[in-house]
């Protein structure tokens, strides 16, 4: 059971995030300027951290593991890519690659209005709520939970991937969508734009972090933890857990969708690979490594794992899967609460499995 009163780490982390967000634009032009590559990497890491928070909210605080959060991430990413392409088309007249590839003369009808961002954003939110709402309702209503839920969400994201791989859906097919040139009227790819996107992503991360902190610290958050720890008892006491689970699930989906929106303009491409079950599993790994049930842990886990991944995928791409699988085994066997376990250890007694079990407080079989 986590202590609700401790605000220290989260304030510290939020402050740090905001500091970087302010420092990056402020330092541009000076000798300490952040390189384009680094700024871009920071921005992507921030998007991943938002994604990790969204999963931590549902897994860490409600005990429901989703292996399909890539789906909501992709909804945000695809809608933002549609906005960017349509906007670029309106401003510069560039015809997207996939239209030429398919030999289509015009955008499909459901692209109408996507050059207007508020409309695109509304569509993204509505689609996310629709998909997560229907799926969550039918699953929670029939009490599908635990491993079953995880497996079915994985199948969901897999099927969505197969669907998006088709070229005739009007969403770019297996090549995906790329070639974004203009964002909100400004040229993309410039240093200023990259820094602005990274700073914006960090700001959104800080905002999401504070919002979730407020949520889990509220009475509602206490109910979430109660549902996670003993749902049947809570129901016996007269609480309706279906609605609670559904609300958190949809909120989590929307946050994942926002992460997708932050991610796409920074990598400059979206394709069905973001829907692969591996990515969705990896999100769970970030949270597990950082420590589920701790917002700070989720953020640190996402930042740390992805920073190592960025570094290794250029330095030694073949080693990365081995390191990742080793990390997962280490976390699930030795540090069930991830890095948070490390933070709890006081180095007065030697660390043995017995003491670990004591400190972690989780019943071992």
């Amino acid at each position, binding site marked *: 059971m986590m202590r609700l009163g401790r605000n220290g780490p989260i304030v510290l982390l939020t402050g740090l995030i905001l500091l970087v967000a302010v420092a990056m634009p402020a330092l541009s032009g000076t000798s300490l300027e952040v390189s384009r590559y680094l700024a871009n990497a920071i921005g992507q890491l921030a998007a991943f951290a938002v994604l990790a928070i969204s999963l931590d909210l549902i897994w860490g605080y409600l005990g429901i593991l989703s292996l399909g959060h890539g789906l909501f991430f992709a909804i945000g990413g695809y809608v933002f890519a549609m906005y960017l392409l349509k906007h670029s088309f309106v401003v510069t007249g560039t015809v997207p690659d996939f239209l030429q590839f398919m030999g289509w003369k015009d955008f499909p009808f459901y692209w109408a209005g996507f050059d207007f961002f508020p409309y695109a954003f509304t569509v993204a939110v509505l689609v996310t709520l629709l998909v997560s709402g229907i799926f969550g309702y039918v699953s929670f209503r029939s009490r599908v939970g635990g491993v079953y839920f995880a*497996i*079915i969400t994985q*199948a969901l994201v897999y099927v969505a991937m197969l669907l998006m791989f088709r070229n005739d859906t009007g969403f770019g097919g297996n090549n995906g969508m790329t070639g974004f040139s203009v964002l909100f009227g400004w040229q993309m790819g410039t240093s200023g734009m990259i820094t602005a996107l990274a700073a914006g992503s960090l700001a959104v991360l800080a905002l999401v972090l504070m919002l979730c902190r407020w949520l889990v610290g509220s009475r509602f958050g206490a109910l979430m933890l109660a549902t996670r720890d003993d749902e049947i008892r809570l129901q016996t006491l007269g609480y309706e857990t279906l609605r609670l689970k559904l609300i958190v699930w949809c909120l989590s989906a929307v946050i994942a969708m926002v992460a997708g929106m932050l991610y796409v303009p920074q990598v400059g491409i979206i394709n069905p690979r973001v829907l692969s079950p591996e990515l969705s599993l990896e999100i769970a790994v970030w949270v597990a490594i950082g420590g589920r049930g701790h917002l700070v842990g989720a953020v640190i886990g996402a930042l740390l794992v992805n920073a190592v991944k960025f570094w290794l995928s250029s330095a030694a791409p073949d080693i990365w899967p081995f390191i*990742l699988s080793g990390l997962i085994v280490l976390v699930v066997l030795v540090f069930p609460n991830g890095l948070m376990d490390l933070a709890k250890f006081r180095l007065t007694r030697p660390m043995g499995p017995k003491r670990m079990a004591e400190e972690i407080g989780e019943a071992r079989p």
Partner: protein
Amino acid sequence: MKLARLTAAAGLLAVLLFAPGLRADTLDRAGLVQELCGDAGAMGRAGTALVATAASGSAEDRAFAAPLARAVIDRKLGCDDAGAVLDEGGLDAITRMPRAAAGTPRSPLLSLKNRPVFELADAAFALRGAPAVAQRAAALKTLERRPAQIPEGLLDTAAAAESDAGLKEQIDTLAQTAALNASDPAARIRAIGRVAENPSRRALTRIAALESDPAYAANPEFRAAVDAATARIERGIALGDTLATLYNGLSFASILFMAAIGLAIIFGLMGVINLAQGELIMIGAYVTWLVQQGLRVAAPALLDWYLVLAIPVAFLATAAIGIALEALLLRHLYKRPLMSLLATWAVSLFLVNIVRVVFGTQNMQFETPFYVSGGVPVIGDFIFTWNRMFAIAFAIVTLALTWGVVRKTPLGLNIRAVTQNRDMAACIGIPTRRIDMMAFGFGSGLAGLAGLALSPIYSVNPQMGQNFIIDSFMVVVLGGVGTIAGTVLAALGIGQINVLIEPLWGAVAAKVIVLLMIIAFLQWRPEGLFAVKGRRK
């Protein structure tokens, strides 16, 4: 008395039988050569005689006449005062004795009308007499251009003598086409009936082509025969397609069943979904490949039987991996099933990458032993292929084996007891930890067998496991945990639905619809088709 009459009858029969053969022997060799050197009309008669010889002449006559046809086409026949010489003065055309040309030899030129006749004769000789398969095949190509001119009987005798199975089939096909285009209406109707006996899309095209034939409008009998044949072939094709769909569905279901049964046992027992199950399938296929390579070096005579010899090896290798996985990793995670998902995913990531590093990403090459190659054409375009039959038979054996272990052995009894109520089973002295380990090993071994059965059908590479894993999860979710009957039914259902939908809307739509159906189904029965009566975990 009786004996004498019998002998007489036999003698008469012999005369009747051999009479046509005797008559065909009388090829006028000198006359033929003379006509070859004559005017266009004489050459035409000679060409017809050559074609007749090719169809029904004796072996000696054909050996005599074949070089003549070739020589006229190549303009290597030299007509001189003493008859003719072959090869520009090498041999006499009639006696085939070496002699020089008398005077200046003249090479007769084929008219436009006669050339096709001689080419036909040449091809007919080649089809019956050429030593190489390629030459006979080329001759058949020439004949195919003019099916109506092919003399009766030529193709039947050629097909009977043909040693190459593929070419023999082509000759038979051409024989039917020729008969369809024969001049005698009764022969044509008979031919139509014969074509309709083996319905296929090719037969349908051939019969459909006859509808534009003048006889179709003129001759009502012909028309009726064509229409009846079309209807019969269409029925046959429809039946064949249905059977082919069911057969493909059955083989897909077999694969699904083998991939899922181990998963279902493990999930029922421990509540753990093994995300590395697909990789255990992949390991099973690679072990099969290693056995094949080992046999190639150690015992090449047994190479054909590698699929059988690999059965224990694949089972034991994957079972050992499974037991190690359980003892080192999952043992500590039974109270945390969600973490076990991540842990087994880490294992799958590790296995995929270690195989990729060791063997590379390319598809592995497998021998195709005789018992998994080819097939029996049944009806329409449905071919009963042996490689799919192998998978189906293998699945049935696996099913029997699993059923036997779970129902008839002490281990199976313990597995069922622990599945129903772990705590109570432990109370009455069942070593639950040991049972977990054995069951995990058994389930993993079954995955290895699935990999073996897959290797003749699917491509084997490090990524292959991921193609099956989600489908087999769906089988487990639909079938209900830990029941063999549920797994069988769910595999059959998902397999058949997949192949039924695929031709209509494509493979992706099939997967989408199957997933939606499963989600809808879980509304009605959240525990799957067959829920084990026991405590809900």
